[in-house]
């Protein structure tokens, strides 16, 4: 623990002459200086001169001001903050994996290629789609890869098409991805139950938002595809997804599924079985790899055989030979670079291999039965919280939900808003839910408990949420002031953006 309220920047601790790293004795002749004069390295201005003790204490103290999954309930909706099993870390650190070079000849990295191949096979079974790449380094990178597959598919048919459709409940990464892949974004309306609307929807402001039927009729073959999160960002399963897929396919467009919420479906339903053409998974969400304070993640993409030729290269291939008298199958793995239709590489080497190892370990630990049990428990947990809090907080959509539930602040007393609820939770020892998202719910509180939470942990959270609702009525100022117990009060984000100080000088 630390009772300090401030840890200075490391640069303020620097004392010329101190060292934190002793170099090995040089066992070859000293370097000749071959640099032209103007390429000789000048002085460093910020790199600190500190000891290992200074560095360890610095980062240990800083760590005390973070809240992690092991500190407690972390219901950050859409991020699936489940337990990070320690065996995953141990396995990824095995020298047999960690000390392998990505350009070593295939014969010398058969274990790594077997890992890539095996997880691909398992993800095919989980998604119901027949082809997988593990190269994308995060969810957004997976989205971009997926949309580029769609683009290449259309180009192969004659034209790339112009538009990507997405619902107004979509994650921000979806429209940003479509733009990065060279597409225009057109928004599809959501209907009263929170799912994609086929019909036009007139909002409270009298504005008409176009439904899928209208957009497909108007844009027709201009539509390259639709990006859909399922279950969507409200935790609601898009129950007409097969109809959506058929409507798209009729005009030659494809269905992309954002798998951010796959923790609601593993072992229960498979996107390949309900018309999805291409999707990404988040190994750092559904498959328990640590979030690392903002990555590294991994965003594998699964797709149909129509899209398979376009997958990033190289592709891991397994060859099987029968050896010996009994004809025992012996597998060997290789990298296929000869992929003339491939969109090309999306990252150097094979993406975040270390994360793939962790995800495979997670799948091994759970097995097929355990993965399904985890999904069901995640759904039970979210529905328990929904049941306990639905009468306390307003809920815009009454539709059944799966792994998460979205509440909002519209019935809060005394000008207490979602931000105040979030900060009140901090003072009560919890990480807040995702707030103000999805934007279609005003003042949204998006709660995703995951399967990791026991009833006891959830009951404590539920009690805290109830207490906050009570405080809003009785002592709203206490919430407007929160947090007051964590050593740092609300920070001035406006000042940070208006007069940016982005490094120490």
């Amino acid at each position, binding site marked *: 623990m630390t009772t300090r309220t401030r*840890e200075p*920047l490391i640069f303020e601790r620097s004392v010329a002459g*101190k060292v934190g790293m002793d*170099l090995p004795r040089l066992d*070859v002749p000293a370097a000749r200086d071959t640099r032209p004069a103007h390429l000789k390295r000048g002085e460093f201005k910020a*790199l*600190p001169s500190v000891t290992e003790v200074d560095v360890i204490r610095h980062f240990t103290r800083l760590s005390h001001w973070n809240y992690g999954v092991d*500190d407690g309930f972390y219901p950050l909706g859409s991020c699936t*903050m489940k337990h*990070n*099993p320690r065996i995953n870390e141990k396995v990824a650190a*095995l020298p*047999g994996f*960690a*000390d*392998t*070079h990505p*350009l070593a000849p295939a014969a*010398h*990295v*058969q274990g790594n290629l077997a890992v890539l191949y095996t997880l691909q096979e*398992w993800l095919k079974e989980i998604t119901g789609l027949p082809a997988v790449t593990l190269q994308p*380094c995060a969810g*957004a990178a997976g989205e971009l890869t997926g949309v*580029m597959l769609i683009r290449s598919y259309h180009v192969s048919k004659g034209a790339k098409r112009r538009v990507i459709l997405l619902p107004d409940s979509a994650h*921000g*990464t979806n*429209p*940003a991805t479509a733009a990065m892949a060279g597409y225009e974004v057109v928004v599809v309306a959501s209907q009263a139950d929170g799912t994609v609307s086929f019909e036009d929807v007139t909002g409270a402001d009298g504005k008409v938002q176009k439904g899928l039927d209208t957009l497909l009729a108007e844009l027709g073959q201009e539509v390259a595809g639709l990006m859909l999160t399922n*279950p969507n960002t409200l935790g609601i399963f898009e*129950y007409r997804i*097969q109809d959506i897929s058929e409507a798209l396919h009729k005009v030659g467009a494809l269905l992309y599924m954002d798998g951010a919420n796959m923790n609601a479906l593993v072992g229960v339903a498979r996107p390949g079985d309900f018309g999805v053409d291409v999707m990404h998974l988040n190994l750092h969400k559904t498959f328990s790899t640590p*979030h*690392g*304070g*903002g990555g590294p993640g991994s965003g594998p993409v699964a797709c149909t055989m129509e899209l398979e030729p376009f997958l990033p290269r190289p592709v891991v291939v397994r060859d099987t030979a029968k050896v010996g008298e009994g004809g025992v199958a012996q597998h060997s793995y290789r990298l296929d670079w000869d992929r003339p239709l491939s969109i090309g590489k*999306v*990252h150097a*080497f*094979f993406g975040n291999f*270390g994360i793939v190892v962790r995800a495979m*370990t997670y799948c091994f*630990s759970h*097995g*097929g039965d*355990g993965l399904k049990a985890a999904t069901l428990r995640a759904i*039970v947990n979210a529905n328990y919280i929904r049941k306990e809090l639905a009468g306390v907080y307003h809920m815009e959509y009454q539709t059944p939900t*799966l792994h998460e539930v979205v509440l909002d602040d519209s019935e809060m007393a005394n000008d207490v808003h979602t931000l105040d609820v979030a900060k009140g939770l*901090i003072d009560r020892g919890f990480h*807040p839910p995702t707030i103000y998202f999805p934007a279609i719910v005003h003042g949204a509180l998006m709660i995703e408990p995951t399967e990791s*939470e026991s*009833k006891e942990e959830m009951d404590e959270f539920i009690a805290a949420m109830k207490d906050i609702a009570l405080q809003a009525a009785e002592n709203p100022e206490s919430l407007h002031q929160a*947090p007051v117990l964590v050593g*740092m*009060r*609300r*920070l001035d984000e406006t000042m940070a*953006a208006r007069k940016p*100080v*982005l490094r120490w000088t």
Partner: protein
Amino acid sequence: MRYLPSAPSEDRALLDAIGVGRAEDLLQGIPAPLRLDRELDLPGQQSEQEVLQQMAALAAMNTQFHSRFLGAGAYDHFVPAAVDQMISRQEWFTAYTPYQPEISQGTLQHIFEYQTLTCDLTGLEVANASLYDGASACVETALMAVRLQKKRKTILISAGLHPHYQEALCTNITPHEGLQLVLVQLKDGVTDMDDLAAKLNGDVAAVMVGYPNFLGCVEDLKAISDAAHAAGALAVSVTQEALAFGWLEAPGKLGADMATGEAMSFGNKLNFGGPYLGFLAVKDSQKREIPGRVVGQTRDLDGQVGYVLTLTAREQHIRRDKATSNICSNQGLVALRANIFLQLAGPEGLKGLALQNVAKAQYLQARLLELPDFSAKFSAPFFNEFVTCYKGDMKTLQAECAKAGILPGLDLTPYAADLKNCILWCATELNSRAQIEQLVEVLARVPSLVGLAGVAK
């Protein structure tokens, strides 16, 4: 299942509270025909002990080389114990993006320090919190350069850029109609200044050059920046071996407008190519076009100094299709490794380590060139990688090295026609003199083509 809080009494209590008989009843939102009507065809649950055995067996299928002379974008450096120990604290590795700054000051201050150090290494003014890797960092930087340059639509890339970076650029620029990538040829291992001059024109948004480049050669970044600027183009330095910043002048000091690349060398194992660390630093005037997370200093209600995610109006969750990038999760924990590593190294450690790399590579080169089958390919200065021509049989060389537990340099034959039978060697502080001597001994035993031809006669 050891991670699931399941027990008959607890499961019942939850289901009773919800008012359903069994968990499956909560799947009513998924139409029955769309549900999976069978169990997943995957292995069954396993204990930690069994999982470890199986995964360790896979790891054991990889060859463990006791000495490695292969770099080419993935560098074998020593990782101080403090790095692994520190990032294993749950406060760092189990947290997520610091959306709630009051309980994320650790991560936020770390990123602020990382940004500061990235600026220090590159000689530029604003850095982001990380990008996925060197390849995607190149892509983000190229797209940013085009945004900054408005009407200019051509990106010149030196043929000395890492081939994977070149390919990722091609993958990601292709969808943008109107944009084009044009390759600038190399001459004696470095960017051909005549070809560069010939290809620079009023449509060129940026020139991207390896520093040092894929072939290990140190480019004259100053001359290239000057040429780019004279044509109104931005100069972009791409570094795949960030430790070179301990030996080579900061790109910003040589005129580069943007510096990007791969910084896995700071505190990471090879990990078969990832997770690695894409970095990006730019000029202050360009900051509102930078992709990814950026942390800024501010104050809390009591006036205490603190840190927040800032300039968020650039980002996907606010700006959606008008965002500077779609990136959300980046390489946070790898950036933490780099930050810890750099703080441990300090200015003397970084320069000393860089110098050791130069010394090892120079010694390796000198010893190789004593062998009759090896000759130097290029004359440019190099950091820790260099290319030799090889007169022998590459397959035999690789086989003999493998037998001796050595991973040799990269066979460049598949990479370019004029690199046939060339090898890209790398030496770092991890390569001892004894390893180098053993390598030379093994190579000396490999029969050369010249020798074989003699036998055939």
